[in-house]
């Protein structure tokens, strides 16, 4: 790694994040065999496979239309388990709180975490609370670690992706990212959009049970583009998406044009990006259309060929195909 200081960009989910993980973190934790880039750990415990995953939530603002950091902390980890085919069961919660944080907000956040977990049938089973000096943290950080059970027959992941697989998104993209950005950049949403923040385990289980899913992801930080980019590299496939097919709420599109951003790079917190066997298309689309979290689901592309370096192409409104570039650094509003 070239830089000797950690930058914001190292945690932004983009190019430098990958560098940090591949060049620093992975060589140190080299006990994972082939699964180094998977977000969740498959654990062979007696009596079955369980999955374990961890994430810290450091979002600002803490409260946003459609959710708060507590809901997010439950959804994010539950969804990470769900996308690897696990049935989420237990969560731990680690809280780091800046002194002076209002108790009322704290309660609100924990309640929403707890309610969200409960709604997904997940138990919060252990926790930890640290308080740090004012100025030593930004209001509140939450780590959730989840464990889930992986049914015997389930096997999802980038290596399962085949040429011909359809790429399906379970709904409109960028709602969460735009809801948060609007709050941060002083745009007013007028009730048009809210974060899509939701636990996806139920929908994911139904989808997996069709037997037609080869891989799933929840396209959070870095958005659909970053997940596609990462999966293309991991699966060594060329993927193509059709720009017009990607469902974008008109207000999200408007916000993006106001801030100079691209919805494909905005975070989602309640969407599944699904790689599906083409012969199961109608079954999978049926599951989506009949589930409250999948109604706006659409096929947005497909896996077209093998390619050692892996790449993602976008077919534009002109019918041209262009590369979908990786996000480098932070995804900031631009004036030019």
């Amino acid at each position, binding site marked *: 790694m070239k830089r000797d200081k950690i*930058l914001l960009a190292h945690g932004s989910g983009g*190019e430098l994040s990958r560098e940090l993980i591949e060049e620093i973190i992975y060589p140190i934790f080299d006990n994972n065999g082939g699964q180094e880039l998977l977000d969740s750990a498959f654990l062979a415990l007696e009596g079955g496979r369980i999955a374990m995953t961890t994430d810290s939530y450091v979002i600002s603002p803490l409260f946003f239309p459609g959710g708060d950091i507590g809901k997010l902390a439950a959804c994010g980890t539950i969804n990470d388990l769900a996308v690897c085919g696990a049935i989420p069961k237990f969560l731990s919660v680690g809280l780091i709180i800046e002194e002076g944080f209002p108790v009322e907000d704290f309660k609100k956040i924990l309640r929403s975490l707890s309610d969200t977990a409960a709604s997904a049938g997940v138990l919060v089973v252990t926790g930890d609370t640290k308080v740090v000096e004012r100025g030593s943290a930004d209001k509140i950080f939450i780590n959730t670690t989840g464990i889930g059970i992986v049914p015997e027959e389930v096997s999802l992941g980038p290596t399962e992706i085949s040429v011909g697989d359809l790429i399906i998104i379970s709904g409109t993209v960028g709602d969460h990212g735009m809801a948060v950005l609007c709050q941060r950049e002083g745009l007013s949403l007028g009730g048009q959009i809210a974060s899509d923040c939701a636990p996806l385990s139920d929908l994911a289980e139904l989808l997996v049970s069709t037997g037609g899913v080869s891989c799933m992801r929840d396209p959070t930080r870095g958005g659909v583009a970053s997940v596609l980019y990462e999966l293309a590299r991991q699966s060594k496939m060329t993927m193509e998406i059709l720009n017009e097919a990607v469902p974008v709420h008109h207000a999200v599109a408007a916000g993006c044009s106001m801030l100079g951003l691209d919805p494909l790079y905005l975070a989602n917190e309640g969407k599944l990006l699904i790689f599906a066997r083409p012969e199961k298309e109608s079954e999978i689309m049926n599951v989506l259309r009949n589930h409250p979290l999948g109604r706006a689901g659409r096929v947005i592309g497909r896996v077209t060929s093998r390619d050692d370096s892996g790449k993602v192409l976008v077919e534009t409104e002109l019918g041209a195909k262009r590369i979908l570039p990786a996000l480098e650094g932070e995804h900031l509003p631009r004036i030019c």
Partner: protein
Amino acid sequence: MKQTANKRQLAKLIQQVERLAPADKPLNIMEVCGAHTMAIGKSGLRQLLPDNIRLLSGPGCPVCVTHDCEIEVYLELARQRNVIIATFGDLLRVPGKKGSSLADARGQGAKVSVVYSTMDALKVAKNNPGKEVVFLGAGFETTAPTVAMSVIQAQEEGIENFSVYSLHKLVPPVLEALLLDKEVKIDGFILPGHVSTIIGVEPYYFLAREYHKAGVITGFETHDILQGLVMLLEQIREDKPCVEIQYRRGVLPQGAPLARQVMARVFEPADAWWRGLGLIPKSGLRIRESFRNYDAKKKFNIPEPYPNEKEESNKNCACGDILKGIKLPQECRLFGIACTPLNPVGPCMVSSEGACAAYYRFTEYGGGWNEAR
């Protein structure tokens, strides 16, 4: 008010371009504006054009052309304990002479506030009375009036801890600088829509009159660009170069006189250094003496014109020739070796849609990915 075309309309426009493309010789068309470069990149238009129409990406990303010596100056400012740098996000990752950027400086402790508007920068100043807030005024004629307004407002409201480090650049002088080269191979310009919103048509007249180059002020939708191209190709075919406005919903022939007045009240033209292009006479804006209290260069005693530092930072960067259509990126000695998108040297690599960056990403000369068709 946003206007999008349907597929058939677009296909029709492409047909028109194909029809107008000369069979015999290749044409070099420069899109001056970075926003055009972005729009062209996103639409995939470049691949659909006839082979003998080449779109060159111009020096039109105001942060990419910020000279690396000036970057070192504001990085130095950023390191001062009492200073908060306010900046548009665009400037955050642009590296200076020594390879580090504002993002790096922030990582090392500099206070950097990313704003979307100069109004936010003024708020930062009001909220930090004990600090000096320096706004990095980067941008062309579109942005300069908004920065000028903030200086006027700071004066009116008595905000004394606010100043502007002017990095502003002007479009017509850089076009002229490119054209001064005898070898230049540009046939026409897709002229910047929003710069022209402010300056109107008159400043471009020299293109046709003095250099016999075609020019169309163009909007940013794909159909705008295609229509602009059609208009350019017609000028070229008929050998009647002039300055036309395709983007009539965004540009008046007279531009925006009030915005120009505001800009002229605060700024005056000055020679300016461009990354990869060197010193270009009267191609920048400096703050007038009457607003000296808001001029970061004066407030922090930054020597002008930085003797010994203003020589071209990397003589090997071929950006100048690339922008003139004389060279291709892979003909630069640094391309892909000392100069890559993560560690760019010249503006053509700094801009993520610059010619060098695009070649690096999308051609066999770069990272190994072939541009898709």
